[in-house]
């Protein structure tokens, strides 16, 4: 007989086939779908988040777990009265104007998605206006900006100022990251948070939204 612990472990292992089988089996045994989601699937994903934060899981492993999770979720949601799982929050991300480095930003996006956030990725070399449009369109909880160059990090301030001028600064939390960024810089330009890496970015978003 399948257990919720086994299901959590299968998510942690990133074993999609196993997750699907165990989920089915649990559903067939009449286990409460809420429990399958919370004590099985999401419990496994929480463990993933913890290991990733402690540098004990690699990104591709997290992504595999996220895929396995999704497969399990789809099964439960399709077959039960559970509505869609609401995302933990909505995040708009982008690399600031003039900066082409986007792998760090991409990573943050993927990790946020894997951890249940809805992410809108605006890409690299994103002008302040584009951030403003996105805030108006997607009404995110958080705007995340990335920069790798000392000459583009200053555009983070430009963007924050532009958000303020457009009257939307107080509607979102602004977080920033990238090699030259420090907490001090974040404080100086009036960002709400700074993260030194992708794993901490997930934590930071959770904390900012009180989740």
């Amino acid at each position, binding site marked *: 007989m399948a257990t919720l612990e086994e299901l959590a472990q299968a998510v942690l292992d990133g074993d999609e086939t196993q997750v699907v089988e165990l989920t089915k089996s649990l559903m067939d045994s009449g286990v409460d779908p809420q429990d399958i989601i919370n004590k099985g699937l999401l419990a496994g994903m929480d463990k993933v988040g913890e290991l990733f934060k402690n540098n004990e899981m690699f990104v591709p492993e997290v992504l595999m777990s996220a895929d396995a999770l999704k497969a399990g979720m789809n099964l439960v949601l399709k077959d039960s009265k559970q509505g869609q799982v609401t995302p933990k929050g909505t995040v708009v991300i982008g690399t600031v104007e003039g900066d082409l480095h986007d792998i760090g930003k991409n990573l943050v996006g993927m990790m946020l998605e894997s951890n249940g956030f809805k992410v809108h990725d605006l890409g690299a070399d994103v002008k302040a206006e584009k951030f403003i449009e996105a805030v108006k369109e997607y009404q995110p909880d958080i705007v995340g900006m990335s920069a790798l160059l000392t*000459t583009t990090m200053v555009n983070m301030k430009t963007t924050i100022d532009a958000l303020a001028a457009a009257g939307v600064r107080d509607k979102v939390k602004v977080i920033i990251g990238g090699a030259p960024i420090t907490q001090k810089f974040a404080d100086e330009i009036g960002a709400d948070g700074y993260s030194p890496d992708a794993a901490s970015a997930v934590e930071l978003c959770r904390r900012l939204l009180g989740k």
Partner: protein
Amino acid sequence: MDYKPVRTFNELAVKSLDEFVYGVAPNPVKTKNGMVIGGGTVYPEVNMTLPPMKIDESTISEVYKQYAEMIEGIVKRAKELYAPGLVVEVELLPETTMKPEWGFEIIKIMLDKMREYEEKYGLKSVLRCTPNDVREMIRPPYMRSGEMLESTLETFEKCAEYGADILSIESTGGKELHDEALINCDIKKVIFALGVLAVRDMRFLWSKIVDIAKRTGAIAGGDTACGLANTAFALAEQGMIPKVFAAVDRVAVVPRSLAAFEMGAIGPDKDCAYEGPYMKAIAGVPIAMEGKSAACAHLSSMGNIAACVCDTWSNESVQNVRLLSAPAPVVSTEQLIYDVRLLNEAAADGREYALKMRDWLARSDAKYDPQAYVLRPDIVLEISKELVKEQDAFLMTKKAASLAIDVIKRGIEKGEVMVNPREKKWLDIMKSQIETIPDDEEKFWYELQKGLDLTKWRPEEYGLTVSK
């Protein structure tokens, strides 16, 4: 249009382990002012960048002032410490590449000061001019035409005409796909990105750069896979991907970076992606390397071993911020000069001692990290020897990855290299993925197509056509 290599390498330039050592390259490069790189002396190569600031019309004069201040500090300290010669690298930023007149002005400021110090104090120095590969600014990028490419080439041309000695770039062909492949640890896509896309783009781009070098009398230096293998390295250092994956990626870029030399570049190769030792082994060119004295720019597990066969020794890049002692570029200059003094002193006692020094540098790091391990001079030669048997760049890339895996596995078995237990399975995953790659490039492309996100890059910019 096909960009045919002007040279091919079917045997090693470095004939034996005893000839594989820092300061000495089979094909040294002589600069206009008589410095010989790879001719027996390791030179410091100082690279610097701006502190946090915006670059636009309103700040450009401050930008110039920053570069003037940096070069003054650098040559002054180099003179005070009796540097045997100096390579100054300017990695232009996107803004100063897109406006070639800005990049030119910066290079001019640097060169004028360097010439002043050569005249006044006899300090020999040469400038490596490295424009930014701004083709990436447009997504998906146009690789073979358009304003961005033109700006890059115009920057090269203008700076070379004024006397920039060495032309280099960190070109980004294949990066659109390689980034994604890295994060997913998908070695098949890595091999395609490097062995097909990156190689094709290198051949295109370097045919242009070599032309410019010929027209202007500049030296076509080389092109490190910074956006590729160095990204892998940074991700591994942060614990995002396995170090074994980064190590394999690093070896897999060899055919891509070799393409510059196949198209006529002659070195000194650029640092950053640490593929230089392979370039030296195969093409015999002198190489720039970076290690512990680049810790200001990034931490690494290759602080000493990187120096084993270097010809210039670099700090990667440092911001113009003030430390307790002096501005950071001056601090880097000092550290690099002391590092090369030691290397050159050992070599002055005879080749035997240079080899001893090399082996200590290698031994001190090789066992702790697979990325360091694949830089061990004997392993570089062992892998390179197999690679030159393969003339097709795509197959060479596949082979490079495969050989790297085998070597690391063997190293683990022999107890020569430490690999975190949870990384070991990735060697097997990579190996079995590689086995599914066909030997035919077109076939591989056909197979992969469906799984690729073609909104991110343009196959036609790499001479590829999409089926159906």
